[in-house]
């Protein structure tokens, strides 16, 4: 494998990992919203989804409970703690479960095609950008070594 291919591969892995981690682990919604809290909980419907993606009746019951607790003035940590005490560790997500849940959401077509295309284009453009920066850095290093 040439050094150019290695740099391109490294760029792709770094960019797709960062973008993937942002999508899987970071939440767009504020912590005092139902979406913000349900990002931290597992779907109770015996499916691998994260609660925020779950629209089944059992998931909606949990989300309604979150809404009631938020309007009663509880903070995100209190609500997550309540679910842990009430339903045990199965209500929480390990990083692997979160990854599996989000992958399930993507693979079942849970997001609009436009968003998926945009995600792919961002990964490609930023891979090209990082690759260019790495190539420039490598060239600079080589010129310094020559001197």
């Amino acid at each position, binding site marked *: 494998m040439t050094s150019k291919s290695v740099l391109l591969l490294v760029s792709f892995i770094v960019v797709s990992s960062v973008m993937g981690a942002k999508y899987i682990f970071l939440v767009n919604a504020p912590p005092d919203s139902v979406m913000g809290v349900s990002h931290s909980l597992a779907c109770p419907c015996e499916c691998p989804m994260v609660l925020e993606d779950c629209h*089944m009746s059992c998931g909606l019951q949990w989300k309604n409970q979150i809404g009631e607790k938020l309007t009663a003035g509880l903070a995100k940590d209190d609500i997550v703690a309540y679910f842990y005490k009430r339903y045990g560790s199965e209500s929480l997500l390990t990083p692997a479960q979160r990854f599996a849940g989000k992958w399930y959401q993507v693979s079942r077509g849970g997001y609009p095609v436009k968003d998926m295309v945009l995600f792919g284009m961002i990964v490609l453009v930023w891979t090209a950008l990082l690759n260019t920066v790495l190539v420039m850095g490598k060239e600079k290093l080589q010129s310094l070594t020559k001197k």
Partner: protein
Amino acid sequence: MRALALVAVVTLLFSGHAMADGKPPYEVGRMKVTIMPEYDSSAVLVIQEGKFADRTAFPKSVSFTLPKEVTKLTDVCSLSPGGHHFCQLFKLDYGAEDTKLNIKLPYSDFFIDYQYAPFTVSENSVREFSFPLDTTNSVKTLEAHIQEPYRSERFTVTPTPVETYKKDGFNYHKFIFKDIKAGERKFIKVSYSKKDIKPSVDEMYSAMLTPSLFSENSGEIMLVLGLATLGLLWFFRRRKGNAVDDI
């Protein structure tokens, strides 16, 4: 006589093929449709769930008919006897009068959840719509529940509901229809007026929202920023290369 027998065999074969191929209509045993106007957005939220009568015939392809004004189909899922949910890939065909949903269901239980916008909201206005019940497949018992939006006035539904009840702070109107034939046209007319354009539930406390990959225009901004930086780098590299060539 032989010709008649041949025709009978061919007819049987074709009808069998149609069944195996998943051509509707089929019979739905029970179906429940919950219609929530202006629940957490300015559209109407609809949840359609039910069970096909012949559970042994699944998996197979089935069709549903949704209103033509569907703006977002959130979920199409099937439920296994063990309680596992299988949300499916689906295909929507937008027609002039309605929207066809084609899907392969692994189990006879189904769950469809979508938003549709039969009216535009404005302050101090009357909202009216006629919801077409999905009768693509025949239905033994169809229950419809219409939720009254918060702060709505002069709320009326036609035909007359069998029951009006309260649940989680909302008023609901319940309808029960029996032995509906496939293709039979059934509508529920809803009319109410509202002074404001806010939905019943604040988006912050809505259970029905789903997360998006990008918040607002952040995806587009990331893409344009990346392209612009890439273009600048390419430009400078090219200029630098030309300068080296000139020397």
